[in-house]
């Protein structure tokens, strides 16, 4: 291979890349806020004893789990404006698609966290005379949230990566800027390598943190 690497052109591309990075981070944070809150609500709906609430919530989850995220983004971007005649800023459309996708996955994470609370703890709550809402608030949820933290964080990083998909609907995120620069400079290898490093650098600390938390939880469970 006689390719001459040349990163010098990237120097002048720093400002647009930073702009793109800002959009990517905004997308990831907004989608995560949405996924963390709505995911929790959705989890409560899915665990409801009433089928009227439970079944639609489960359908929502399955829809997002069983279709490609790219398709969801495209669908939101093209179909929603046509169907309901609402035209949102593309960034908001991206947040909506990514956020609802994350909501579905996070709801499952919360639910797994609740189910990991030992059944005996419910018995102990009854024996201590705690009312049903007190059991939920003081015993079940605090444990469930702790249990689900590693998965929520992993899902969160996943959404950061998935946010690159919104480039396809012309949201000017990091990936979109990279695509533009790469085509303009005819330097795809350098551009995409650098941008990949940026995504990597953003995600790695969180991924390592997940690892640390999981190890601490394992140690606590062993005894």
């Amino acid at each position, binding site marked *: 291979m006689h390719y001459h690497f040349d990163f010098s052109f990237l120097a002048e591309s720093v400002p647009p890349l930073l702009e793109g990075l800002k959009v990517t981070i905004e997308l990831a944070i907004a989608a995560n806020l949405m996924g963390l809150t709505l995911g929790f609500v959705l989890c409560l709906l899915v665990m409801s004893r009433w089928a009227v609430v439970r079944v639609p919530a489960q359908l929502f989850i399955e829809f997002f789990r069983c279709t490609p995220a790219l398709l969801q983004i495209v669908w939101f971007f093209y179909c929603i404006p046509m169907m309901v005649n609402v035209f949102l800023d593309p960034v908001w459309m991206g947040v909506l698609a990514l956020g609802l996708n994350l909501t579905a996955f996070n709801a499952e994470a919360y639910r797994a966290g609740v189910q990991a609370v*030992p059944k*005996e*703890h419910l*018995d*102990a709550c*009854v*024996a*201590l*005379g*705690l*009312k049903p809402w*007190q059991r939920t608030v*003081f*015993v079940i949820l*605090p*444990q469930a949230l*702790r249990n689900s933290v590693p998965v929520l964080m992993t899902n969160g990083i996943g959404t950061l990566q998935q946010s690159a998909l919104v480039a396809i609907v012309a949201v000017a995120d990091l990936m979109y800027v990279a695509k533009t620069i790469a085509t303009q400079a005819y330097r795809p290898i350098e551009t995409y390598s650098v941008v990949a490093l940026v995504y990597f650098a953003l995600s790695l600390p969180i991924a390592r943190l997940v690892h640390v938390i999981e190890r601490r939880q394992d*140690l*606590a*469970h062993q*005894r």
Partner: protein
Amino acid sequence: MLQSTMKIVPSSVPADDPVDTTHAGDFVQLQSVYKSYGENLVVMDHMNLDMRADDRLVVIGPSGSGKSSLLRVMMGLEGIQSGSIKFQGRPYIHGADSGRSKRIDGKLQRQIGMVFQHYTLFPHLSVLSNLILAPVKVGGLSKADATERARTYLARLGLESKLNAYPSQLSGGQKQRVAIARALMLEPKLMLFDEVTSALDPEMVVEVQNVMLKLAEQKMAMIIVTHDMHFARDIATRVVFCASGKVVEQGAPHEMFKCPKEARTREFLEKVLHLD
């Protein structure tokens, strides 16, 4: 035979205070309690049982005999299909056909404490928070009063240094002792112990049994399910042998273990005592 060296409660009953096993107690009265899962699995088959306020019942029997069900029903964790239970002379639980819609007197339920086989300390709360959760939220105690009470109980169980520890920092035996303290915090009139030492390493069994023997000294009414026959002999005022959801035989520990009247009791005791 670990227990014989640390006996606190005399295992033979003094002559001047004979435990009258024929006399019906009115502290707890089970009348024809019937409980089944589905149609085939009957766990309590019209069970009758009486208990006095100074009784310590040890319930023994093969697995599936209804011993654990007895405790879980008493605690209100599970319903019964028919029959009724009185507690302190007052109606406590009535059977309902569904087996679910048990009617329970909540005030009486709060006077019963229970300790389980598996550790049930809440791992996200410190020992102190585990102890004061129910007294503050349910018993209406102030946080300061509850903390004071927690200190007292922990000191009695030799765990005052663990006040701010988390359950993951405790040994299995310490966890069960804290669980006992947590149940005592609500000052129950009756304590239920469901195989509380079964999940423990052997060297930790004694520390938990010692705590229970101390409670016995203080005349706490208890119903204990255990497979440890030596401990049963040490702590019981009355041993109850259950099989197939019925009380087959009951009597003072020395009678029951030396000369059981029923063939099924004898068979069971031979099996478990030989295994020891």
